[in-house]
Structure formats: C-alpha cells, structure tokens
C-alpha cells in the first residue's frame, strides 16, 4: 500500500505542474485550468492526510469535509471566472495574457 509520503509526493508534483502552467501558459483558459489542477493537488493532500490521520481507528473526516468545500468553491470560482473571461473576450477579442497590460506602472 502506498505510504503517506507517496501521496504527498504525487500531490506536490501536481501542484508544481499546475503552478508551472500558470506561470508559463499564455492562454487564460489554460491558466485557469492549471489553477484548478493546483486545487486538486491540494485536495489530494487533504485526502491523504485525512486517511493517515486516524481517530479511534477511523480516518479523520475533517480533511475530507474541506475537500468537498474546496470542490464547491472551485465550481463557483470557475463559473464566475469563465463569465469574466467571456466578457473580456467580447471586449478585447483576445484571451492571451500578453495582451492584458494596459494597467501597469
């Protein structure tokens, strides 16, 4: 059976991939997906911690509870986020991050 460290390693890798995507990709949709990836990585960690943190022989449910919250919140975030991105596309005809630099200094 996989140990806690294995889960954490995978989770860390996922998180790093997500972060790398956010930093490197130019398309806002992709960036947004990478952000979701980071949240999933966090969720994985939470579940793993929860599984290995036993209370009275049972996994601690609190971590898993947060996972549900995170998923819910992420859904809301995506809904709002996509709406904004759509609005932006309507106004600017682009969703490339490079072209979003009118506010600076």
């Amino acid at each position: 059976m996989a140990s806690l460290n294995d889960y954490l390693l995978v989770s860390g890798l996922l998180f790093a991939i997500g972060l790398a995507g956010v930093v490197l990709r130019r398309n806002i949709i992709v960036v947004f997906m990478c952000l979701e990836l980071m949240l999933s990585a966090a969720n994985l960690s939470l579940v793993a911690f929860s599984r290995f943190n036993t209370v009275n022989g049972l996994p601690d449910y609190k971590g898993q509870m947060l996972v549900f919250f995170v998923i819910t919140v992420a859904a809301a975030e995506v809904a709002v986020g996509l709406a904004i991105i759509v609005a932006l596309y309507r106004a600017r005809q682009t969703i490339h991050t490079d072209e979003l630099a009118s506010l600076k200094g």
Partner: protein
Amino acid sequence: MTLAWILLFLPLVAAAANQLVLRKSPLVPLVSTASALATLVLSFLLLGKTTSPDPIHWASIGDFHINIGIRLDALSTGMMIVVTGIGTLVHLFSLAYMKEDEARNRYFTGLSLFMFSMTGIVLADNFIMTFIFWELVGLSSFLLIGHWYQKDSAADAAKKAFLCNRVGDFGFLIGILMLWGITGTLSFDAMKSGLASFGTENAAYFTQNSAAFSVILSTAVLCIFCGAVGKSAQLPLHVWLPDAMEGPTPVSALIHAATMVAAGVYMLFRVQLSLGADVFEGLFASNVIAWTGGITALVAALMATQQDDIKRVLAYSTLSQLGYMVMAVGLVHGEAGMFHLFTHAWFKALLFLGSGAVIYACHHEQDIWKMGGLLKKMPITGITFAIGTAALIAVPFVTSGFYSKEEILAAAFGKNKALFGIAVFVAFLTTFYMTRAFVVAFLGKPRSENADHAHEVGPLMFVPLVLLAGMAIGSAWLTGALSAIDPRANAHGHTEGHGIILGASIASLVLGLIAGFLFYKGKDKDPVSIPLFRNRFYVDGFYDRVLVRYFQDAFAAIIHFFDELLINGLLVGGLSRGAASLGGLFRKLQSGQLQGYAYAFGLGVILVIYFTVFL
C-alpha cells in the same frame, strides 16, 4: 554715592530724551551740551573719591551675578576728568561747527550716547561691564563716523571701524573668558586674589610645569590685548582709524584722538593694576604688547610723513602716540602710558579741533597743500594749533607732552634699548611731520581760493581751542593731583640714564624741526614722495583686496557653492533622488504582465517558505 550713578546715566538720559522726546526740537544740542557740562561738574565732585557704590545685579543666575557697578579710584576719576572735560569742549565746539548740518540733532544724540558709553568703560568695575560699554563706544563711533552716511566713503569708514573693532573684540571676549576661568571672577577688585588662589590651588602642577603659569596667563592677557589692538588701533588693526576721519572733525577730536581710542590703553592698564603689575614683569605677553606698541608708533609715524589730508596727518599721529602708550603698558610702566594718555588727550583734541576750525574756515577743504598762510588769517586758531603741535613734538619743559613722553622714553630705556631707539626715532619723525603740517598749512601764502577767503572762527569755536591750549601746556602739572597716575610721584626713580634720555629727546626734536623747515618751507607741493609711506605700506589695499575680497568673500562664495552642492545637492538631493529612483525601479516591476505577476508571486512563495522553514 548716587552722584556716580548720575554721572554714568545722565548722558544716556540725555540721549534718550533727545531721540524719543525732543526729536526735531532745536533744544537737542543744548540738552546734550548741558549734560556734558553737568558730567564735568560731577567728575570734579567725584575726583579723589574711592568708595564705590553698591553694584546692580544685571544678570543673575543662582549666586552668579554679572554686575553693573562703578569703581571709583584715582585712575577712573582722573580719566573721567579727561573724558568729560574734552567732551564738554567738543560739545561746545560742535554747537558752532555743526550749526548748519541738517542732521544736527542726530549728531548730538550720538555724542551723548558716546559720553555714556565712554563713562561706562571708565567706571566699569568688572570685565563684562567693560565689554558692554566697549561695544557701545564702538556703536557710537560707528554712528558718528557715518554721520554723513550718504557719502560712500563715510559709510564705508563707519563699517570698517566697526568691523576692525569686532575683530579685536573677538580676542577680547576670549581673553575675558579665559581670565574668568583662571581667576574665577569677572570683577577687577577680586582678580588679584583670584589669581593668587589659582596659583596656590594648582601649586603642585606649577612646580612640575614651571612655564605653565606664564603661558596660561600670557595667553589670556594677549587675547585681552586683542581688544586693545582693535580699539586703540594698533597694528595690524590700525586701518580703521585714518578712515574714521570721515566723521565730523569734533568727533575725531573727542573719539578718535582723545578718549575712545585711548580706552584700549586704559583697559590694559586697568588689567595690569587688577592682576598686579608684578605679575606682568617677565610675562611673555608683556613683550608682545610692548613691541606691538613700538612698531605701531614707528609705522604710523612713517605713514604720517606723507599724508596730505590734515586730519589724516593727525590720525596717524594719534596712532603713533597710542603706540607709545601701549608700549609703555607692555613695558609694565602703565602709569607712564596713562600719563601720556592724559596729556595727549588734551593736545590732540586741541589739534583736531584746530584742524576742524581750519577746515570749517576753508569750506571743508582738508588738503594741506591747498591751505597755507592761515596763521595770519586765523591767528587764534593758528597759535593754539602751534601750541598743540609744540606739545605733541614735546618741546622741553614748557609743554605737557614733553613730561609724559619723557616718562615713556625712560621706561623704554630701562627695559628695552631697542624700543628706546625706536621711540626716539619716532619722536624725531613726529617732530618732522608735525612741522611739515604746520609749515605747509599755516605758513607761506594761500594756495587756494578757499584758503584765501578763510577768516577766524567765532568764539564758540575758539574758546574751546584756547582752553585746550591751556591744558596742552598745563595738564602735566594738573595731573600731579592724581598721584596714582602721575609716575613722577611714584618714586620709580630713573636717575640712571636721565641725561641720555633728555639728550636724545631734545636731539630728535631739533633734528625734526630742522628737517621739517628745510624740506617744506615755502614749497607748493610735496618735494618728498615715498609711495610706500603714502600708500600706508599697502596694508589697507591688502586688507581690502586680499583679505576681504579674496579671502573672505571668495571663501564665502566657495562655502556657499559647496553648501548648495554638497548639502543641498548631494545629501538632500541624493537621498530624495535615491528614494525616487528606487521607487521607479519598483514601479517597473509592476509591468502589468499577468504572467510576470504570477512569476513574481511564485518566487515570493519560495522566499516566504525559505524564510519560514529554513531560516
């Protein structure tokens, strides 16, 4: 002793009344003159009194007091006679001399202010008070020299006088402070005991460092001497006195010949008396003072030989005579110096007022080469002037100047033969230039229209001249009443070398007379031209062009430049520019690029983790 207080404050009251109440009233000159006369009477009443009134605490902090107090002794009461006596006569003379001046009231107010200040110096019982009035005579001198302030030369001369005195006062104040540190007192009375206890308290130290006492005291005394150098116009601060002749002539007589310029000598002698003359014997400072006096006497006399302005001749003569007095103090024969001060005051005032009368008669012509033949046109003035000259050149046995100069020569002979030589030579020069001035101005025939139309001045002017002429002859005997001042009364005894001194004195007189007549009898212009002397050894030019313009002004401009550059530009500007450019750099980081932000964010996270977990 309320009389003494009245004596001190009466002139101030007169000045204040003139300035604040009477203002433009024609009474102003009379009020000033009356107050001068009253102070003369008071001075006579106080003559010989030695009990001083209680001082006023002027500034007190805890048990430390700066006092305004009056010290009555033979020295001060005697000096008061000179100050008020000449002051009164000058006031009288001025009534006529300044009759047509539109700023007459300002002039008389200034005179009263001067009388107050001078009285303060003479009567002061402590150093701070001396310094206070020392500055005030400087102010009144400034005001009176600059009386005709609209003339550039007068305004400049007033400024110069004030500044030269300030330079001297720089040292004076330091000296007062140091002496205060040494003796622990500012009062003249307590100074001797203060010095003694200073010696005993640090006896162990002084036995180890034998020279230390002398060095410490010399430093303080020399600093104080700086004050006298400024006020009595000794080298190298002598430059203001000839220029001060820009003031009205009675002022020159009173302030720049008889009284104020003598204050330096008076003060030095006061210090000598307070600390004890024996302390000064062998003090390094004494030598410096004596030599300064001697050299001033010589240099001034040399310069006097080539002046054309009658007042300037007298001014350099004053310098030279002051040099004598300072030399005497430096030779620790202060009483000889004071004696000369007393006699000199009368006859030099006489000469100045005489020249004033001449100038007045010649419609403000001051060049002796444009005068001539005045003895016939103004006999009273001419004769009194001749008497004054005789006193100055020390015609033996009949003039007061002879007796006092003799004392100085004797002092020099006893102490320092080199200075004796200089003094004798100066005596010769004195005779020479005074003969020159008298011959050119009063003898021969008139050389200008102004001189041709000159006629005798009115009684208000010649009465003071006559009185002064009397004093020029008799003051040596009158001074005998003041035993502390008259060195002849103190059995100092200089029998040794008496003949040599007398001989040298008479020889220099005769030679000077002969040379003077030989060179100048019947001449229309100066047959001798020595540019070095005429241009006053180029000292004035050096001060003006090098010290003031290049040293002070250029230095100030350089400092100003660096003030702008370094402090305003680099320090202040640099800091603000540094902050602004760092801000600009930060601002560039805020590039507006989302990716860049994410990148910065990521880096920041790494740093945060690093700081928290690993550091």
